[in-house]
């Protein structure tokens, strides 16, 4: 089974995302911030990362930049999932190497749609 790393400091968001993404037959690994997430990636590279922007310790953008420098770190599809919904921020995230972008609030349709656009399902 492929794995999805869900990175968000809100346990509610992680739970909602887990429920939706498990239904698409991914196994889920959770992280509360960028640093934890990076630790997971060093151990075992996920197939996809659902990534919040604003988090304590290490934010989403910094995590993404670090991830892409790891061996094998260019492989995961990274989908930002954040309340930062300004066009400038979206563009910044894409330039930093994100594959897709979800503006919160999201629903099942949007997650499925973005997973299918990035060729994950």
């Amino acid at each position, binding site marked *: 089974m492929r794995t999805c790393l869900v990175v968000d400091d809100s346990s509610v968001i992680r739970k909602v995302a887990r429920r939706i993404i498990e239904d698409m037959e991914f196994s889920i690994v959770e992280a509360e911030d960028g640093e934890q997430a990076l630790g997971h990636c060093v151990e075992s590279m996920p197939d996809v990362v659902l990534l919040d922007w604003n988090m304590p310790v290490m934010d989403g953008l910094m995590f993404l930049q670090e991830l892409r420098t790891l061996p094998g770190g260019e492989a995961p599809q990274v989908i930002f999932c954040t309340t930062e919904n300004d*066009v400038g921020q979206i563009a910044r995230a*894409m330039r930093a190497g994100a594959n897709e972008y979800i503006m919160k609030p999201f629903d099942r349709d*949007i997650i499925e749609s973005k997973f299918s656009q990035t060729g994950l399902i």
Partner: protein
Amino acid sequence: MNSATFAYLSDFIKDRSGLVLSEEKQYLVETRLLPVARKHDITNLDALATALRTPFSGDLATDVIEAMTTNETFFFRDMTPFDNLKETVLPALMKSRTSGRLRIWCAAASSGQEPYSIAIVLKELGAKAAGFTFDIIGTDLSMEVLERAKAATYSQFEVQRGLPVNLLLKYFSQNGDTWQVNQDIRSMVQFRPLNLLRDFSALGVFDIVFCRNVLIYFDRETKTDVLARLAKQMTPDGFLVLGAAETVVGITEAFRPMAGKRGLYQNSLTPAATPREHLKLSVG
């Protein structure tokens, strides 16, 4: 509602829109039409049916039909039709014409996501489309959705279903919580009210017709009639695109499915590609 009311309403709706409502759709009629009744100060659906029979029931009739149609749509819905457009339909037409005008009809345009998706595909062709101009005409029965289509303004939810974020950044402008399609894409599409049950020959002839997720609501006879008239509005080498749950097979001889291309059909007047290739080989 009594059974005479249901019979009257379902006949009325079928006659005006083509939508077929079987007995078990009674709940649907109720949930969709009770708010319409309330808006017009009518107490229940029996009274609504009576009101529809009177002359001057124009606004009420329109509201009834608009309430019953399903307008669900999204950008790049099902993706395959847009891949087919880019990889099969446009290359074939641009090869046989070499230059000029290509006319595209989106025959159930709803709130505009489908015609704008087509416009984006065309825009993305860039220099490959040099020498061609494209006209896209979007039509729908419902004035309400056409107004939304013309405004070309979509919610955050709507722009995230089906639309890749790079295309969102490229072809939309953000305005608070909503996103509007940019003028260069908007200007490629014209919208008009049109009922597929009525004569549409005045629209002229098209090279490509998208008629997706509307025939499913019609009975077989209506489907056959609409498809036969569509075939007459298309160039002999034109392409028809239907929805994922729709087909021409067993419904009309006017179109034939293209082998290996799901949802894509050609006018039966066009000779099939394989025999023609074969002929060329054996001659030359």
